[in-house]
């Protein structure tokens, strides 16, 4: 509390000393422009997706919806059966992958962060080595084939359970961001390693775990690669990200949605408008978790990345 006051005082004094000048305006404008560049496209697409097509083709900046708000494209998309099915697949895949991935990766990262224990350094090197050296696409395919994973749901979950990037971040977090004194005190108090992990370490790393869970969840939600490479085509296993990609590039999918819209009694919607509505549909879940993600940014992630 007092430190904050102190900081505020200094900031105020800096403001007085340096003054609010051209320099500030310059930075203000630059940052604002870049931020607009990041956000405006999504706004544009959102507005365009609810604008009647006759208005949309006239072009323009799409700052506000003109000619009324029209949800017909969303109706068309959600009346396509594979959309809902793929949502379920994606939810199942995301939940399973995230839970298992965070458990396995965090546990391993904690163990490996105890470098004084024999073998941990070697294991660490083995894990990190994989960041730079992999068998490659075809060897992966053949292994999954031998394991009987090809064309199954599990090929979208199991290979990614140990997430090497977040392993490194978590390991650094456990090594540097948990006060050593805390753990040592717990051990001296007669707490076992297990007790220390569950009663001391895990509670204080909660925000890091929450942040990383969300990051991993987003990765899994956006993943279509595992389906494209190792399943190829199996209707009831399509994840949403794949359906989305097909909506954007594959005309058979687009035609199916357009036909569906016709059977609802409306004109077949123009592909570009449908694409925009699809983009918005795909962004919604991310937008829902985004505020939580952001809250943990500085708290969780960065502490692990750089030594203090």
């Amino acid at each position: 509390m007092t430190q904050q006051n102190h900081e505020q005082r200094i900031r105020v004094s800096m403001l007085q000393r340096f003054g609010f000048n051209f320099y500030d305006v310059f930075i203000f404008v630059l940052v604002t422009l870049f931020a607009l560049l990041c956000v405006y496209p999504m706004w544009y697409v959102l507005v365009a997706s609810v604008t009647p097509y006759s208005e949309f083709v006239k072009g323009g900046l799409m700052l506000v919806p003109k000619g009324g708000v029209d949800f017909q494209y969303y109706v068309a998309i959600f009346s396509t059966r594979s959309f809902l099915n793929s949502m379920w697949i994606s939810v199942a895949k995301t939940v399973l992958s995230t839970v298992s991935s965070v458990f396995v990766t965090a546990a391993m990262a904690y163990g490996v962060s105890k470098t004084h224990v024999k073998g941990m350094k070697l294991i660490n090197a083995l894990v990190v080595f994989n960041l730079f050296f992999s068998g490659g696409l075809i060897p992966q395919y053949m292994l999954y084939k031998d394991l009987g994973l090809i064309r199954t749901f599990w090929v979208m979950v199991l290979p990614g359970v140990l997430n090497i990037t977040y392993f490194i971040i978590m390991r650094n977090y456990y090594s540097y961001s948990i006060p050593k004194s805390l753990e040592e005190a717990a051990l001296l108090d007669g707490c076992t390693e297990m007790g220390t992990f569950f009663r001391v370490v895990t509670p204080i790393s909660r925000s890091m775990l929450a942040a990383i869970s969300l990051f991993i969840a987003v990765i899994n939600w956006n993943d279509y690669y595992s389906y494209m490479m190792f399943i190829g085509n199996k209707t009831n296993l399509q994840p949403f990200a794949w359906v989305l990609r097909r909506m954007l590039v594959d005309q058979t999918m687009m035609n199916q949605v357009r036909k569906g819209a016709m059977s609802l009694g409306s004109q077949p919607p123009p592909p570009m408008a449908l694409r925009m509505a699809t983009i918005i549909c795909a962004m919604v879940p991310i937008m829902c978790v985004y505020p939580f993600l952001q809250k943990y940014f500085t708290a969780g992630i960065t502490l692990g990345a750089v030594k203090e």
Partner: protein
Amino acid sequence: MMVQQARSLSQDDLRKRGPGFLAYIRKYWFLYMLVLPGFIFMAVFDYGPMYGIQLAFKKYSPKAGVWNSQWIGLGNFERMVGDPNFIRAFRNTIIINLYNLLFGFTFNVFLALMLSELRLKKYKSVMQTCVYLPYFLSWVIFSGLVQVFLESPGTGDSGGLVNQLIVAAGGEPVDFLKRPEMFRSILVITNIIKTSGYSTIVYLAAISGIDPALYESAAIDGANRGNAIVHITFPRILPSVVIMLILQLSGLFLSNFDQVYNLYNNYVLSTGDVLSTYIYRISLGGGGTDFELSTAMNLIMNVMGLIVVGITNRYVSKLDVQGIF
């Protein structure tokens, strides 16, 4: 203290072996248990596929399987070197990564400094919210956006917004996505928009760790804010900058499959085809089933990447930052 005890214990154990070893395991059984599941996943899914690397030196026969296919030495690598498409993809990969380093990386640092210089705290956090956001959208969505904006006008429609603006300003519309000379710029710029905000997090954290008193005393000494950035802020984020630089350098031979695959088309293969997309096309992606060549390419990329990482990691360990190993 406890740690030191443990360390000396372990040395004793090493000397004694036998029952001591078991005691050691018993002492740390919980940590080993924690590591075990991850270890199994690593062994199966990360090291498991590595037996397949032998394909790079073999002629694959489905009947014989990977193990019993015939060795052909460096034949696949000879084919690889003789393949102009491989050379092209290789060159493109490196050029695109260098561009990303030159423009993307510097912009990240620049953006972090800009953000940290914003005075109004509330406004700063709004700006951060905005610039982090694109990172969480998939490349599929992002490439959809790119197409919506850069589409060239057809007859009877006004094209993407960018071309509408160009035309409104009296210029000639541009076929952005079909011009090979523009494609790399599009990759670099979209990459900046998508990832820059997120990349600043590390730097902003370092900046927030700087003692405000330093600025104050500098101000008393008569430094202006430009001086303060150069002499106070920048030196203090330098370790973070270096480690990020090294991380990025280590990916010199890797390419962003997701980005390129979603953005490229036949027009821009000459400048836009990268190794990962090429490997995909010749093995699983509709351009043939050349398993051996694709594995050989992957192997070469990995080896070269490892060499770069090995060299750079030596510099990291000299710095006061946590290396990746």
